[in-house]
């Protein structure tokens, strides 16, 4: 049996050899097939490229034959773009960088072109899949409905950084205590205000608006009022605490006005944050044969802290001069208790104030005009008659407490103009003049150029310079200068303000 082993092994080897030969005998056939396939594919590729080339040529001839496109850079022309398109390598990184530079130059402003829209630089954009815009993953989940009954909520941040130079008079007068100005935010950064807004309909008849100011020294109700919307005869009633109908600028919250601060006369009369007190406001849209907007507002308010009443009347007239321009003329009268910027606690005075405001706007809406240009000019003047008053003042020379008792008439005015340079850039200038309320021999004037850049509808930067000169019989700081950077930013839904 063992003799058979070599034979068996030999037989096995032979069988294996045959088998192997059989296997190897098939290999040349497969190789041929692969080669054949390769050849066919190459031929197909050549045919396809040939046809593609012919199609390209035809396309080129067609486009060259079209007089409208003959002079236009196109894929079939000899432009570098065309070459790169045909190569299917559309742009090299260098070409892209060059084009981006060209675009920056064209846009005039770094990473922006125009418009009141939110101009978030693309580099700072959160990464959202491209499909988000046309409707990709945005389509998958149903939005929540729980917030339907929530009010519109907004938060506005008002940040300032001010460099302040007291200038002349520094040595002999402490500017922080002068009777003209108490620059709370001078020479420092400050989160001047955070304004929380809550706005919603109460029911079918009324709506409510709350604005809560968070300041460095605490929380304050900026405004909180209910508006009755369904009264007859063009009437509307507002109850609560609100900015009074005094003039035009002072009705807007400080973070949203055209400059960093209210004008001098507004600050002197009502303080840094404008006139706001609890009361009732009745306004009436007066019918007239010319179909013009004429609104009369009558308000009764109580001074906070002192608990005395005062009365405000305002007549607002609005005229469309052209589709692109308008004029607003307002008259204001106020009488009764007045809590000026100098009155703290329960201190107050009594006064009559008459005012006049005029605002011209130009903003083209027609397609033929430049879409991102506008101009605004607004002026207000106020005449104040302070009743006989007794008040306490620190003598700036002797530093003694002195008592004054007098009646005083004074006036103040301001005018400002703002021009829109580009979609997001505005420049403006404000001129201020105000006599002090208690002594019209003292006065100050102010010139304030500023530049505003709207990062988006919801973020705004402002750079403002202010030079103030003072004259008077009392020894006061003659002048000072202030550079202010202001950034105002908002989140949430903040309803647009009336025009």
């Amino acid at each position: 049996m063992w003799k058979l082993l070599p034979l068996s092994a030999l037989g096995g080897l032979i069988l294996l050899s045959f088998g192997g030969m059989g296997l190897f005998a098939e290999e040349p056939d497969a190789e041929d097939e692969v080669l054949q396939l390769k050849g066919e594919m190459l031929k197909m590729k050549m045919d396809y490229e040939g046809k593609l080339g012919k199609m390209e040529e035809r396309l080129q001839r067609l486009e060259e034959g079209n007089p409208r496109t003959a002079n236009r850079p196109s894929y079939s022309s000899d432009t570098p773009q065309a070459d790169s398109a045909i190569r299917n390598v559309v742009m090299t990184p260098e070409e892209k960088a060059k084009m981006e530079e060209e675009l920056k130059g064209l846009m005039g402003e770094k990473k922006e072109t125009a418009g009141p829209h939110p101009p978030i630089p693309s580099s700072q954009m959160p990464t959202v899949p491209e499909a988000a815009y046309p409707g990709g993953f945005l389509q998958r989940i149903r939005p929540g409905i729980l917030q339907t009954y929530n009010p519109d909520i907004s938060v506005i941040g008002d940040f300032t950084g001010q460099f302040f130079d007291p200038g002349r008079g520094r040595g002999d007068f402490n500017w922080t205590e002068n009777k003209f100005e108490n620059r709370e935010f001078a020479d420092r950064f400050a989160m001047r205000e955070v304004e929380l807004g809550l706005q919603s309909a109460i029911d079918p008849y009324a709506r409510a608006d709350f604005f809560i100011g968070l300041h460095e020294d605490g929380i304050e109700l900026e405004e909180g009022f209910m508006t009755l919307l369904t009264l007859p005869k063009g009437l509307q009633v507002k109850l609560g605490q609100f900015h009074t109908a005094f003039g035009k600028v002072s009705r807007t919250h400080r973070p949203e006005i055209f400059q960093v601060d209210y004008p001098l006369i507004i600050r002197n009369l009502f303080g840094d944050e404008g006139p706001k007190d609890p009361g009732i406001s009745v306004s009436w849209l007066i019918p007239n044969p010319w179909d013009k907007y004429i609104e009369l507002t009558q308000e009764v308010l109580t001074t906070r802290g002192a608990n005395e009443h005062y009365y405000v009347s305002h007549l607002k007239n609005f005229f469309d001069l052209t589709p692109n321009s308008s004029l607003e003329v307002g008259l204001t009268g106020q009488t009764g208790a007045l809590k000026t910027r100098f009155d703290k606690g329960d201190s107050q005075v009594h006064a009559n104030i008459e005012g006049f405001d005029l605002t011209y706007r130009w903003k083209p809406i027609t397609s033929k005009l430049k879409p991102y240009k506008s101009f605004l000019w607004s002026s207000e003047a106020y005449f104040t008659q302070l009743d006989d008053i007794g008040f306490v003042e620190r003598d700036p020379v002797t530093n003694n407490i002195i008592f004054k008792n007098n009646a005083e008439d004074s006036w103040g005015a301001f005018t400002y103009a703002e021009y829109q340079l580009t979609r997001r850039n505005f420049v403006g200038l404000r001129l201020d003049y105000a006599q002090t309320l208690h002594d019209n021999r003292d006065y100050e004037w102010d010139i304030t150029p500023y530049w505003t850049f709207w990062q988006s509808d919801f973020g705004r930067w402002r750079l403002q310079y202010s030079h103030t000169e003072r004259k008077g019989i009392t020894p006061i700081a003659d002048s000072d200068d202030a550079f202010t950077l202001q950034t105002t930013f908002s989140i949430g839904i903040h309803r647009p303000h009336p025009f």
Partner: protein
Amino acid sequence: MNSRFNVIFRLTIRFALLTTSLGLALSLPRQTEAKLFLVATSTDIASIARFVGGDKVDVESIIQGYQNPHYVDVKPSYMVKLHKADMFVKIGLDLELWAPILAEGARNSKILYGAPGFVDASVGAEILEIPQIRVTRELGDIHLYGNPHYWLDPDNGKVIAHNILEGLRRIDPENSAYYEENEAKFDKKVDALLPQLEAKMKPYAGTKVITYHNTWPNFLNRFGLVAAGYVEPKPGVPPSPAHVTSLIEKMMMEKVKIIIQEPFYETKISQFVANKTGAKLVILSPSVLGAEGVTDYFSLFDYLIDNIIRAFQEMGIKPQT
């Protein structure tokens, strides 16, 4: 108080009293006018309202056809218009964020939200691109309730007409039959026009275009065109160099030859893109009275289709047989 200020004060008070007296005299009830007064936010809605209301209504719009409906100043003069209105028709979907301020300032309870004279024209319309995730401003000006340019599909025009009809039935039930008849005529006209428009555009089905803003999804969807990209990187966000460069690259890769832009945006970036890619910039108004000859809702579509086909032909885009 000195005399000068007293004089000014007295004059002010007198003027206020005079104006008040005049207003009181004029505030007596007006004679009942034969026609209802409808105010629509846009010229498109106003045009449809004219068809439905016929000679029983006077219709005015707040904005003009060449204006951007997203941004409208809340002018008091618009409030005066709404003060007199019997019905107020909005495009809706939060396109006109300025409209509630106007309606509330108008002191007209007939047209406030929820009142019989308030009509949201979007109810029941086919709305595209309704966000399905939490929307933040990171996504640009995404409208929470979907793309509000839905009137650019004539089928949605019929829905708008029906919503206006419902409003007219509420405020003027006596003439319901008349308004229903008008609405039926309007629908019939749409049904007759739409196949013609579709037939005109059918040979170009699938053609890619670039649009400046995402104004056209309903229009493109209806007529078989494809938005290959947008000049704005996100809705309402102005173009950035990086985005424009990538758009140019995309257009060259995909050989897109048409850029559609509304008349109220600056054209320099779109023109730059067109120059670089050999594409044609076509300025198209998406609204009635936004271009010459576009006098009503039907001529709007004739104008749009004709101008797009002309642009295709100029760019050598051949109709597919």
